[in-house]
């Protein structure tokens, strides 16, 4: 068994330290070592977006990031979206707009959508579809997901 490596990082605003093997992905460490199972594994090779988290403000597929790479970085996961008992508007709009069925893709979509709205508060339908194309959903046909992101953008604008 290979020797473990010490990594210090920030997850959802809290400093976190962990020991990992060089071969472990960020997704594996989040889920196995840190018990943050919100990010999901759909493919484990960067093709479905279910594992999306933000790494220094940029959405990444955490299954293809090595855990040792996040030394000193800031990570945000779906668990960090709601704050003080209140859902983020994107979460609320997904809920109210029935933008999820099985829900396994939802954490990834929420993080990707947040990253999009952070940098483009007023995206067109095409912007949304283009940015969300990293994430696969097999249940919804995307219609209600796109509409939920539109609704969240509108709600965030009125704040």
């Amino acid at each position, binding site marked *: 068994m290979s020797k473990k490596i010490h990594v210090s990082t920030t997850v959802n605003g809290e400093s976190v330290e962990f020991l990992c093997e060089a071969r472990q992905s960020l997704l594996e460490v989040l889920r196995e070592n840190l018990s943050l199972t919100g990010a*999901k594994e759909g493919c484990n090779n960067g093709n479905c977006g279910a594992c999306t988290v933000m790494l220094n403000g940029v959405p990444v597929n955490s299954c293809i990031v090595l855990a040792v790479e996040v030394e000193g970085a800031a990570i945000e996961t779906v668990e960090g979206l709601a704050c003080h008992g209140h859902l983020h508007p994107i979460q609320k709009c997904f809920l109210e707009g029935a933008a999820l069925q099985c829900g396994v893709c939802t954490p990834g979509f929420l993080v990707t959508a947040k990253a999009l709205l952070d940098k483009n508060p007023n995206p067109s339908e095409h912007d949304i579809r283009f940015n969300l194309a990293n994430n696969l959903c097999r249940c919804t046909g995307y219609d209600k997901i796109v509409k939920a992101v539109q609704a969240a953008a509108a709600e965030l604008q009125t704040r």
Partner: protein
Amino acid sequence: MAHANELYLGKQDYQVLGKRPVRHDGTDKVTGKAIYTADVQLPNMLHGKIVRSPHAHARIKSIDASEALAMPGVFAVVTADDFPDLTEKFALMGEAGQVNLTELAANCLAKGKVLYRGHAVAAVAAANVHIADEAASKIKVEYEVLPSVTWVLDAMKDDAPLLHEHLRTDSMGKKADKPSNIAVHLQFEKGNVTDGFQQADVIVEREFRTASVHQGYIEPHAVVALWNEDSRLKLWTATQGSFNCRQQVAELLQIPVSQVLVVPCEIGGGFGGKITVYLEPVAALLSRKSGRPVKMVMQRNEVFEGTGPTPGSFARVKLGAKKDGTLVAGEAWLAYDCGAFPGGMIGPGCMCVFSCYDLPHAKVDGFDVCNNKPKTQAYRAPGSTQAAFACEQVIDELAEKLNIDPIELRLKNAAKEGTRRVDGPVYPRVGFVECLNAAKNSEHWKSKLSGKNRGRGIAAGFWFNIGGASSCSASVNDDGIVCLVEGSTDIGGTRTSIAMQLAETLGIAAEDVRPQVGDTDSVGYTFLTGGSRVTFATGLAAYQLGLDLQEQMKQRAASIWDCDPTSITVDKGVYKQNGHSLTFKQIAAKIPENQLDPVVGRASVAPEGSTNAFGVHIADVEVDPETGKVTVLRYTAIQDAGKAVHPSYVEGQMQGGAAQGIGWALNEEYFFDAKDQMRNASFLDYRMPTCLDLPMIDTIIVEVPNPSHPYGVRGVGETPIVPPPATIANAIHAAVGTRMTQLPMSPPALWKALSERA
């Protein structure tokens, strides 16, 4: 877009049904708290890994696990020899009928031969996934490679490589005398087709081919098994039917069903592919051998190569009509592959091919054919999409030849109450005509489509809803909140649609019911989630449960008022008697105050027969003649939902099914090389639709109440995948004049068809 209620043909006025409450499990799912199987962690848990065949067809000469077992951190290895002897053992499994246990076990761990690339051969349990991976690569399997076959018509040939030396074609109950890959030949007949075709003025006959596609659920198969020291086996798993899973595992391991407890976790999509067991018995064997809990999660390539695709198919469909458009006869010859083991989707294929039309004379022949692919599994309306791809294009061509509008031609021949399907059943009240009329009157159909290489297509689809057993129970809390436990695993928001039916029956708000999916120890037997049955059948159980609770609430009110319970009337959740009046919640609060018996209700149902759901889709496409790429510009799905319990989730089913159907139409396929190896076993190469590939999918819900449900509910989950390939094929034909008779209609395929024509 037409509003759902405008098209509702039922009489009743509902308080809860038809509203759009936030789903009960929603908050957990948008915050990452919902527990799916892969999220389950147990102390001391090991991780299992399957060793899979690199060959499409081979004899297993030997398996040597000694090197793997010698590795530190490796705890157990199992092979087919760890299953009990299942020779000649069959199990009666609900609507799946007689299941051959030897074959079911051999699909989980190959015995003697591997029948497809990706076929499981052995499994190992180790301290973590990485050690398990390494150990799996050190299990040495020696193979003698055999010739293989993956195209259904090739597999039917006399000189095809044989998968099962003992398989004899079953033709209407008669067994052939020599071995073959054809497991079953079905035949259905109505009237006399020869006479029928003689009356035809126009006849169209075409041949169609479709490639295998995968259900593509985003959550890979996963299980955690714990074989406890008290011999109880506990399984946390992603299954569409916890009781069906329990039975399969118990039968395969030859232990009593009640020795197995199945805890259904949240399930990340199923679409028919998470009914049969793959990992569950294997993880159980590993747990028993190692004495530790074992988790197994498939990788995506294992999901593609080792689990259920839908059949690849060949269809020849012939229809005859009179000049005025009256269909006089239809004939279909369908061959569907079932993959490695018999028992594919040919039965429903045969029943669905002509199910939209009233044909006086029809004949359907169907063949279930083994070949070197994973055993095919259900995929949303299994067998119907391939059949509709064929039939609906022939209808379109007939309409063109007869110069009749394609909706009018369908209306003229539409199946309705009293129509007898070729496989026997006579329809009760169905809503196909209403769907066609809704299509005809839709803004989409009436709008003008212009531009070069653009075209509009329309096609119909059919699926039936099965009944089957469902149970639920509930208790009424002092605050009037009703806790509902039901047995149907929730793959698309059904907890809410069932809770809403209970709320409607009780006259309380949907939010006042708290639904939960019970494990197999805590709820009565419930057949699997599939066949569009849950909102219909488990909903029926919820309705009966509501009546039971209401009766008990009447009794409690009667004790409070000291009157005869039969003198109490209930209207919208308000209980009244002789000037007294209490709401449901008020009675609930008075139960402890008055030291009355708590209210606990139960219901179980097993509705017989089936109901029927029809859909019609419209698509506008643009074809790029340079590349063969098709862009879907606009899409509308229309469907009869009977009564849409939660319209958002009905729309969601229609949109999701349509998107899967569009993927099937335009891009998805199992791509095999010369050695019958799948070459695109990843999401990157298999390429399901992303949101950039699709337009908004408009929906029109038609509501023709189902006569066999108190609220008129019909299942809606499956029909929406049926029309898309034919709809898009018809649209491509309208755009560029080319008939695409092969799926997928991918850029290379369409480009080739266009260049051959030029």
